[in-house]
C-alpha cells in the first residue's frame, strides 16, 4: 500500500431505474445503522453517505483498495440486495473523478432536474451527518467544503439555476412576477385533482397566503382544502366570488370552460387596480381565452407554461459546458493539494494526520 485512496461507490438515476433506486434508498434509521456499521471497518478512515431519491452514494477514504468492496457488501446486506445485481447499477469512481463528481452533484449538474438547488442542501445535510457521526476528517472536510464553494460559485456565475423547469414552479414564478410577495395573495384552486394539488403545494412552498379550493365534487374540494390547510368554496360560486381572488389555478376535467370572460370583466370592476392571474392547467381549457385581452388580467395555459419550462431547461442545458469547465478547474486545483496528502499517509504506520476523529453517534 503506497498511501490512502479516495473512492466513491453508489447508484444514481443515471445508472439505476426508479424501481432499483427504491430498493436501494436508505431511510434515516437505516442510514444511521449502516453508518455505525461502516465506522467499525478498520481500514475505512473517513466516509460520508449521500442518500436522496435520485442517488445513494458513499464517499470514502481508505488505506486498502478493498475497502470500497466492503462498504458495498455492508450496504447490500442491509438493503437485502444481491451484490451481483448491485454491480449492474453501480457507479464507481476513484480519486480526482470522485471529487469532480461531488462538485457536479453539489452544483445540481448531475440532478434529474438540471440545476435544481435542493441537492445542495441534501449534500450539506449528508456532510453534517457524517461530521456528527465523527466519520470525516481532514480530507473529506476539505473536499466537501470545496464542493460547497464550487457549487455556490457556479450558481452565482452561470445561469444554471435561472428559471424554473417544472410547470408548477413556472406558474409560481409568474405569480411572483405579478404580485411580488405571495404572502398576501389569495389563491383559488379550481379542481381537486393531482395537478391542482401539486400546484397549490408549489405555491405554499413559496410562502403563498390564503388557499381556497373549489371542485365540481364538493367532498373532494373539502378534502383537498383540509389537506392544504385552506377552505372550500361551492363550485357554483366560482364566478360570482372571483373578485375575492388574485390567482386562480384551474385544472378541472370539465369538457368546456368554467370561467367566462364576462365573469372576469365583472370581477375586475370590483377590483380595478389589482391584477388577476389565471393559470389554466386544464385540457380542454377551463378559462375563456378571451380574458387575456382584459386590462390587468393575465392568463397562461398549459402550453404557455410548458413552453417557458422547456425554454428554461434548454437555457440551463446550454450552461452545462461552462459549469463543467468552472468545476473542473476547481476540482483540478483541489486534487493537486489533496493527492500529496493521500500519498504521504502510509496507513497505521504513517502519519496519523488523516485519521478520523470518531465521536459517539
Amino acid at each position: 500500500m503506497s498511501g490512502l485512496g479516495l473512492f466513491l461507490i453508489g447508484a444514481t438515476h443515471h445508472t439505476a431505474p426508479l424501481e432499483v433506486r427504491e430498493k436501494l434508498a436508505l431511510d434515516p434509521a437505516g442510514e444511521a445503522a449502516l453508518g455505525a456499521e461502516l465506522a467499525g471497518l478498520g481500514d475505512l478512515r473517513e466516509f460520508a453517505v449521500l442518500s436522496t431519491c435520485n442517488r445513494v452514494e458513499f464517499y470514502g477514504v481508505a488505506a486498502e483498495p478493498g475497502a470500497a468492496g466492503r462498504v458495498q457488501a455492508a450496504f447490500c446486506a442491509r438493503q437485502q440486495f444481491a451484490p451481483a445485481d448491485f454491480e449492474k447499477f453501480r457507479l464507481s469512481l476513484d480519486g480526482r473523478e470522485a471529487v469532480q463528481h461531488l462538485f457536479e452533484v453539489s452544483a445540481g449538474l448531475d440532478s434529474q432536474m438540471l440545476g435544481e438547488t435542493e441537492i445542495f442542501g441534501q449534500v450539506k445535510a449528508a456532510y453534517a451527518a457524517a461530521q456528527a457521526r465523527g466519520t470525516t476528517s481532514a480530507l473529506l472536510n476539505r473536499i466537501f467544503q470545496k464542493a460547497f464553494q464550487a457549487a455556490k460559485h457556479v450558481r452565482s456565475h452561470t445561469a444554471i439555476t435561472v428559471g424554473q423547469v417544472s410547470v408548477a414552479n413556472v406558474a409560481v414564478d409568474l405569480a411572483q412576477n405579478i404580485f411580488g410577495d405571495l404572502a398576501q395573495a389569495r389563491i383559488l384552486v379550481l379542481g381537486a385533482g393531482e395537478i391542482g394539488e401539486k400546484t397549490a403545494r408549489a405555491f405554499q412552498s413559496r410562502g403563498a397566503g390564503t388557499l381556497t379550493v373549489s371542485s365540481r365534487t364538493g367532498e373532494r374540494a373539502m378534502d383537498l382544502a383540509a389537506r392544504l390547510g385552506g377552505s372550500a368554496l361551492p363550485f357554483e360560486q366560482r364566478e360570482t366570488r372571483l373578485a375575492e381572488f388574485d390567482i386562480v389555478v384551474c385544472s378541472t376535467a370539465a369538457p368546456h370552460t368554467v370561467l367566462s370572460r364576462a365573469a372576469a370583466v365583472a370581477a375586475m370592476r370590483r377590483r380595478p387596480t389589482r391584477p388577476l392571474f389565471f393559470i389554466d392547467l386544464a385540457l380542454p381549457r377551463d378559462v375563456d381565452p378571451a380574458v387575456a385581452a382584459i386590462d390587468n388580467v393575465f392568463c397562461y395555459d398549459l402550453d404557455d407554461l410548458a413552453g417557458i419550462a422547456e425554454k428554461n431547461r434548454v437555457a440551463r442545458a446550454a450552461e452545462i459546458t461552462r459549469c463543467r469547465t468552472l468545476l473542473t478547474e476547481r476540482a483540478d486545483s483541489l486534487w493537486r493539494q489533496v493527492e500529496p496528502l493521500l500519498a504521504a499517509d502510509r496507513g497505521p504506520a504513517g502519519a496519523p494526520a488523516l485519521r478520523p476523529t470518531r465521536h459517539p453517534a
Partner: protein
Amino acid sequence: MFADLTDRQWLWLAAACYLAGFLRGTAAILRGERPSGGMMYGIIGLAYVLQFLGLYLRGRTDGGCPLGNAFEILQFVAWSAITLYLVVGVTFRSSLLGFLTAGLAAVLTLASLAVPAWDATRHAHIFGHNPWIELHAAIALFSYGVFGLLALTSLLFLLRHYSLKSKHLDGWFTLLPSIVDIDHIGLRLLTVGVALLSASLAVGTVYWLRDTGTVDRGTLFVTVAVWAAYALALGLRLGGRLRAKRFAWTCLALFVAALLSIGPVNASRHPPLATQEAPR
C-alpha cells in the same frame, strides 16, 4: 486641484458619473446580467455629491437656490430625482430603477450642459430675496424630480406589463420587479409629488394674492395646469378609474408635458430684476 474647479466643471464631472452609471448598467444588461445594485448606488451617490457641490457653488454666488435659468432648472430637477432615488431605491431593491434614474439624470444634465444658450444669462435675485418664494420654486421643481422618477417607474411598469401579456419573460425582462410592486411605488411617488406641488402652490398663492401683478399669467396657467393634471391623475387612480397601463402612460405623458412646460414658464417668468452673465 479640485479647489480650482468651477461650478460647471463640478457639474460636468457629475454628468459624466451619471453617464458612466448608465453605460455600466447598459453593458451589464447586454451581457444578460443584472446591473450591480451596490455599484449603481455608489456611482449615483458619487455623482450626486459632485452635482451638489456644483449647485452649491452656483447658489452661493447668488445667495439662494440656483434656479435662474433653464440650465439650472434642469440640473435641479435631475438632482431632485436622484435625491428621491437615493431614498426610495433602497426599499425598492431594483437595480434597474437605478440604471434608468442614472440615464434620466445623464440626459438632463448633459443636455443642460450641452446647450450653452441655456446658461448664457441668468436671472439674479429672481426671488427678490424672499425666502418663501424661493421655497415655493424649490419645492415645485423638487416635485418635478419626483414626477421624473414616477415616469421611470411607469416605464418599468409598461415593460413588465408587456412582458407578461406577450409572454416574453426571458432575457432582461427577468430583471424587472413585480407589476404590483411597481404599481405601489408609482402610486406613492404620485402622492408625494402632488403633495409637494400642492404645498409649493399654496406658498406661491399667498404671495400672488398680495400682488397679482408679480406673476405672469402664462406661468400661472401652466403651473396650475400641471398641478391639476397630476392631482386629477391621483384622484382617478385612487378611485380606481385610472389603472394599470393607462395610469402608466398618463404618468409618462404628464412628465413629458411638465418638462416641456419648463421652457415657457422660464421664459415668461416675471421680468428679471437683473441679468448677469452666467458663472463659468
